[in-house]
């Protein structure tokens, strides 16, 4: 390849990296600005200040932010665990067993995935209030299943189909019991698919805003995105921009690190489920 072409690719690559990182860089920059610096019209802070992080983690805003962080982690982890477990059984059945209704299950998952969240949330708001699920963890975990289950079923069955199931029988022929064959042969082969699905499901739950904002009212269950959306500053006269930026960065960094660590698998999971389906 000619040097000119190489340089072109490098420039193209650099443009993409800047495009992808720019809004993040901007949030980082705001989070490090002192209150007097916020309105300076510049991209970079004139001096680095950690005040916004203090506000969010130990100061006035911590009463809003820290419970929300705890809620988000708890609710998303439980919703992910439940949907992975259910999807694992379903995907095993779809990939391994012969029974009528496979298509029905996959199409239902597809239909649920395109369901407009707001159409579910309006009736839930009313029902949850009546039966006491409003503003509780289960009150969010249940609706989150409508977000995480469909994609888990699709992704996992795409992974499971690629498992050579004959190996299980081969192990049995070699003298393993059914359970041993499953445990020693299938589980290790299925684990990466389950793990990838769990990560994707977790992201989707973590990203939710509509359920979080409609079905909660206090720090008892309000997740981070909803808390950020409603955050209006410690006092009426304080501009919360810096604090929001700091909080936003705290919830973004771990997720971005997770994505970068497992990027290969996530790409495979996202595209397998959708394209090969």
């Amino acid at each position, binding site marked *: 390849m000619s040097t000119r072409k190489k340089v072109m690719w490098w420039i193209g690559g650099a443009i993409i990296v800047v495009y992808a990182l720019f*809004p993040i860089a901007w949030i980082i920059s705001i989070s490090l600005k002192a209150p007097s610096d916020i*309105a300076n019209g510049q991209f970079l802070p004139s001096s680095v200040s950690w005040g916004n992080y203090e506000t969010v983690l130990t100061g006035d805003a911590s009463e809003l932010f820290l419970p929300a962080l705890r809620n988000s982690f708890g609710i998303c982890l439980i919703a992910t665990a439940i949907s992975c477990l259910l999807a694992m059984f379903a995907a095993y059945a779809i990939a391994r*067993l012969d*029974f009528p209704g496979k298509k029905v299950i996959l199409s*239902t998952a597809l239909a649920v995935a395109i369901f407009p*969240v707001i159409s579910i949330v*309006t009736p839930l708001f009313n029902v949850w209030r009546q039966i006491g699920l409003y503003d509780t963890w289960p009150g969010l975990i249940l609706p989150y299943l409508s977000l995480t289950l469909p994609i888990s079923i699709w992704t996992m069955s795409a992974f499971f189909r690629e498992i050579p199931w004959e190996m299980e029988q081969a192990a049995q022929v070699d003298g393993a019991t059914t359970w041993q064959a499953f445990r020693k042969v299938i589980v290790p082969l299925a684990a990466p698919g389950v793990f990838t699905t769990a990560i994707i499901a977790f992201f989707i739950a973590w990203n939710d805003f509509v359920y979080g904002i409609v079905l909660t009212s206090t720090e008892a269950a309000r997740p981070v995105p909803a808390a950020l959306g409603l955050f209006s500053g410690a006092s009426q006269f304080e501009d919360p921009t810096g604090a929001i*930026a700091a909080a936003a960065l705290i919830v973004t960094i771990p997720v971005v690190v997770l*994505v970068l660590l497992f990027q290969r698998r996530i790409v495979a999971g*996202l595209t397998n489920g959708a394209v090969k389906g």
Partner: protein
Amino acid sequence: MTQTTLPPVKKTEPVSAPKRGLSDRSRSERKLGWLLAGPAFVVMLAVTAYPILQAVYESLFSYRLTDPANREFTGLTNYWVILTDPIWWQAIWVTVFITVVTVAVELVLGFGLAMVMAKALSSIRPVVRAAILIPYAVITVVSAFAWQFAFDINTGFVNSWFAWIPGVTADTDWFGDRWQSLLVICLAEIWKTTPFISLLLLAGLAQVPEVLQEAAKVDGATWWQRLWRVTIPNMKAAIMVALLFRSLDAFRVFDSIFIMTGGANGTESVSFLAYRQTIARLEIGLGSAVSVLLFLVVVLIAFTFIKAFKVDLASTRGE
């Protein structure tokens, strides 16, 4: 995706069962299949079908939470009220506008990114792919804040950076006017969701047979001709899946609007309208009717896509 062919199900050992009816083995397999897949199926129905039926029921009442005693069956009145209200039509047009603009831009941009990822030098490919995944990992609310702060008249840098563009000055208020607000909302949505489209398109690109490309090259086709005659027709399925998913997703736009404008200046989307009726005004009846209408529109879009998709597949097969 919808024309999924199920995997060739491996037949288990031949069974010596009577010819009539099902063998014991296949009967127990059926039972086990539903036993395992049933719970997921039931949960999916419970968390979607039940609420939508509830919404249909509640949409038939004049029902305000602030005045629950006067709950009254009014039939289709709520639907009539909504469909004759300009606010509904404005929300529809805003939503359609955002959907069409973002999906069109994302398709072109996502295709470009996918091409770069597919063809780039092996030294920069991993970096590009990692970078692409970052917007995917960022939650929509955070992306909306980033874009809002950038354009905001007080906190933003956009006005000072782009003052050389005619019409942009130090005090251009991007959120003071309808079209400018919509532009920023679209930019944020595009940034956040292009990675998803480009990953699907990249998977589609991988399925284009290299042989065809080579053959076209040998026949003297230009890069442009190969793109339109070989690459794109061969990845129609991937393009349709990406389009369908993103369109439906874009049609539900809510987070960015909530953060950036709160629906001011005529930037309210249909989802936002439903939210406002139910939560802010506590009009359960009207809010439910909006939710049901939104649901119907989404079903209509999906149905149209799937129909178009099938026709396409049939015609390509006919060639």
